[in-house]
């Protein structure tokens, strides 16, 4: 229940605040995906179901139906595959795959949007957004996840 509430808050923050702050919106730091990755780190493969739900909700709210659904599920899926290779939990086991997955997701989103629409996206925005995500992932690990190991 607590996680569901946090999940909804993350979706609204993503849609209302981050997508408005960053132009184009899909380049915004993906708070929701970070929350999903932390869920995958804690409960394992079942987080894919949350990713399906989160991706669908975000797609409906941002009018990009299908984009977030496929990318969220793919991200959580890839994270789970990498993370399951390790038999222990640690800082690097969470942060490294998360950062790579977030970068991949952002890159794929950019490529998918470019293949359908024409727009300008600066490299600085892309890099800044990903760096914020990495800081958020590191912060989340030290604030919350470390206690769960």
């Amino acid at each position, binding site marked *: 229940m607590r996680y569901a509430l946090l999940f909804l808050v993350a979706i609204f923050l993503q849609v209302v605040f981050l997508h408005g702050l960053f132009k184009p919106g899909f380049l915004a730091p993906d708070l929701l995906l970070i929350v999903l990755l932390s869920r995958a780190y804690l409960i394992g493969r079942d987080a*894919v179901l949350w990713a399906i739900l989160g991706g669908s909700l975000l797609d409906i709210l941002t009018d990009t139906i299908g984009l977030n659904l496929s990318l969220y599920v793919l991200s959580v*899926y890839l994270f789970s595959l990498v993370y399951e290779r390790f038999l222990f939990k640690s800082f690097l086991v969470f942060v490294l795959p998360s950062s790579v997955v977030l970068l991949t997701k952002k890159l794929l989103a950019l490529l998918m949007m470019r293949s359908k629409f024409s727009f300008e996206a600066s490299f600085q925005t892309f890099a800044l957004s990903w760096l914020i995500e990495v800081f958020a992932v590191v912060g989340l690990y030290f604030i919350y996840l470390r206690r769960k190991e």
Partner: protein
Amino acid sequence: MTGRRFHILSLLVVVFGLIVFFSDLSHISYVRAFVSAINRVVAPVVRFKERTVSELREELGAYIHRVDVAKENIQLKRRLSSLLLTEKELDTCLAEIEQLEKTMKVSSGFRKLDYVVSRIVYYDPTGFDLFVIIEGGKNKGIKEGDLVVTERSVIGFVESVFSSTSRVITPFNEKFSTTAVLGTRKKRYIYRGGFPEGSLLHVNLEDRVEVGEEVYLVELKRKIPPFLIGKVSEVSRGKDPFFKEVKVKPEAVPREEDYVFVIRRSR
């Protein structure tokens, strides 16, 4: 979730998402209706956010403006206090000058100048520029003998005053005569007008006069500052055995002037 279900579900959802995204299924009317219904629910939150952001921006702008105004106020206050100090220093200097003048019995009296600004309305039609007519006469308190000048040079003296105009004779006019000095020297001479050159009278043979020297109008009472009449154009031994013949080319060109100052002589 078992291994096979996990892989199949994930891959199916990814492929499904991609198909939906690229096939524009989201534009089907039923899907759009559903999306707009959801968006309608979220709309108040988005509107609230927009309002909050715009209000915050306005408040921030107002705050920054106030800070700037406060800084400017501080700078202006400093400048004002510095100017007040300078004003006091200036007052002290003026008081000292007045005291010195009294002690040395010298008075410039320049700052007590009483003048009016006037406009030239008519020029000498003969082309000799012997006189000009200026705006303002009895109605402005102009009187015969008042000096007419530009910022630097002499235009002439008021010869006759009418109700709303005055006739001014220029240094080219033979009727024009006044006390004059050469440069900064103290010895006074008489300048008499003439066309195209006026002359400096009673210049002793031993007085050193050079071509190009400036000739200034001075007043005996020294109530008005010296104004340039013209420059010495020719120096020669005249017919008079005691005096030199000094020609002066008037500096002012009345035809080129629009506005003049009429200095009222103290009476």
